[in-house]
């Protein structure tokens, strides 16, 4: 019987599976995490969204006891990362960026070894390995060396390995980086399935689409700090309405289009990286569309596309940080 957790529990029906309080970590002069706090409700998928260098991997490494924090505390599945590391490790699963599978072992041998190292007895480890191979559609390849697996199969095997001990909390560090769209969708389906079985998932990603698709709640991080938190819907509302976008046929006319569009809004009009797309947040965008088209026509700007859309997480990231999520951190 487990003792009641000593960590703070959020009000409501669901206890927190992950609690982070005032977590900081520096590598030399680089502040990888700066006073980060976080709650993840049990049985949900929580997305940790940010560009490279935002501190996502550092946080995952601290939560999986691979890295000690400089200050702050954290609990995973009710266990303190610093003081109860061994108990904590037996209740979590980690799938990292690099797909840590042993190439010389078969898929089955990989899973059985991990099971033994979770201290399952031999028959349980064998049974779990067979179940997971079946579930991840690897049964046919089970007795082949994992060296021969495709990238998607390796990721699935890596994810299967993190599930061997039926963990309460699963930490996935950029699980779909480098996968083709089809393999990515397959992995998403598997992750959704896990949560419906009661597992809590913390997932880091640089893909806004991925967080939007999977996560119940999203924490946006940048330069080691939490800059926003909420559901995808809540975050989108941060942009105060819709986004108007105009695509000009000739890049030379982008500035002229920017001038026209800016007159109809309250600022933040900008030209995208492609040099031909002008975007601006607008309230009641559809009503303004006709006036803007008229003015663009009067100014002699030829447009190839114009529209008003709901903001994407890209727009949200831009509104929150002043730069797009795809841009790498400049050191």
């Amino acid at each position: 019987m487990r003792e009641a957790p000593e960590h703070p529990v959020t009000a409501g029906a669901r206890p927190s599976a992950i609690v982070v309080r005032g977590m900081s970590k520096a590598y030399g002069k680089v502040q990888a995490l700066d006073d980060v706090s976080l709650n993840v409700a049990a049985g949900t998928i929580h997305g940790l969204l940010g560009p490279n260098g935002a501190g996502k991997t550092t946080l995952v490494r601290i939560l999986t006891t691979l890295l000690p924090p400089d200050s702050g505390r954290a609990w995973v599945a009710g266990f303190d990362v610093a003081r109860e590391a061994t108990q904590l490790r037996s209740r979590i699963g980690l799938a990292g960026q690099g797909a840590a599978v042993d190439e010389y072992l078969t898929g089955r041998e990989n899973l059985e070894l991990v099971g033994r190292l979770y201290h399952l007895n031999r028959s349980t480890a064998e049974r779990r390995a067979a179940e997971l191979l079946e579930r991840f559609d690897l049964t046919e390849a089970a007795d082949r060396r994992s060296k021969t697996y495709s990238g998607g199969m390796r990721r699935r095997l890596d994810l299967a390995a993190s599930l061997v001990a039926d963990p309460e909390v699963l930490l996935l560090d950029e699980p779909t980086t480098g996968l083709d769209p089809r393999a990515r969708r397959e992995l998403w389906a598997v992750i959704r399935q896990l949560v419906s079985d009661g597992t809590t998932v913390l997932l880091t990603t640089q893909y806004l689409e991925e967080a939007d698709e999977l996560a119940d709640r999203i924490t946006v991080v940048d330069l080691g700090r939490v800059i926003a938190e909420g559901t995808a819907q809540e975050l989108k509302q941060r942009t105060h309405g819709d986004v108007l976008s105009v695509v000009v046929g000739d890049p030379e006319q982008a500035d002229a289009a920017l001038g026209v569009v800016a007159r109809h809004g309250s600022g933040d009009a900008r030209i995208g990286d492609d040099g031909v797309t002008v975007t601006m947040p607008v309230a009641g965008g559809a009503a303004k569309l006709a006036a803007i088209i008229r003015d663009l026509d009067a100014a002699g700007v030829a447009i190839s596309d114009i529209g008003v859309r709901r903001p994407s997480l890209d727009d949200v990231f831009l509104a929150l940080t002043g730069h797009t999520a795809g841009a790498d951190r400049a050191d």
Partner: protein
Amino acid sequence: MHDTLTALRLEARWALADSLAMARRNLIRYVRSPELLVFSTINPVMFVLLFTYVFGGAIDVGPVNYIDFLLPGILVQTVVFGAVQTGVGLAEDLSSGMVDRYRSLPMTRSAVMAGRILADTVRNVFVVLLMIGVGYAIGFRFNASPAAIIAVPIVLVIFGQAFSWISAAIGVTVRETETAQVAGFVWIFPLTFMSSMFVPVHTMPGWLEAFASVNPITVTVDLLRGLSQGGEIMPSLWQTAAWTVGLVAFFSAVAITQYRRLS
């Protein structure tokens, strides 16, 4: 008190089980990467053939056959060169992210290293027996009591383990396969040659003879010559024992400390 003992006993049992699981994994890797096995056997076979037939006639080792003089040296070289693989394998696991997975598991932390050294010890038993067989084919003969003959592979395996710990300390410090390979070999090569492995040390210049006489390779080779040819085994027995205990104590502490400090 009783609870503490039970907990300790349980911990020791898991440490053993985890080390065996890791050793099994590493042995499977050896068997499935034949290039490693070939490298660790072809090399010493080549050395024994080259030295016997190319240099053997020119090196005066007194009243014994050169192959009887040479083989104990080649056996030591085999386990010492083979030990480099311990650090290379560890560095590979560190750079590939395997160690991150292991460290996130509730397994005993030292088992990653202990399992590798255990596997390398098992491999050494095979390679040593193979090399003795090759020696027999080209004229090597034991000339000693059965107890002394049985002691030969035992000494080799224990001494090889000491060098595996040095190699492990290097591997866990450099954490990169090629660097571990270079850093593992660069000092071993001269160390083995500046010993009694291929030539009697009294033929060397005085300063080198002084170094060669206390070289752990020399004392172990001399011990094995004594054991295999029914000769004197003192003082090389206690010298070998002292070196082995000292090397294991120091380098296992370094390796384990470095492993614990990984982040």
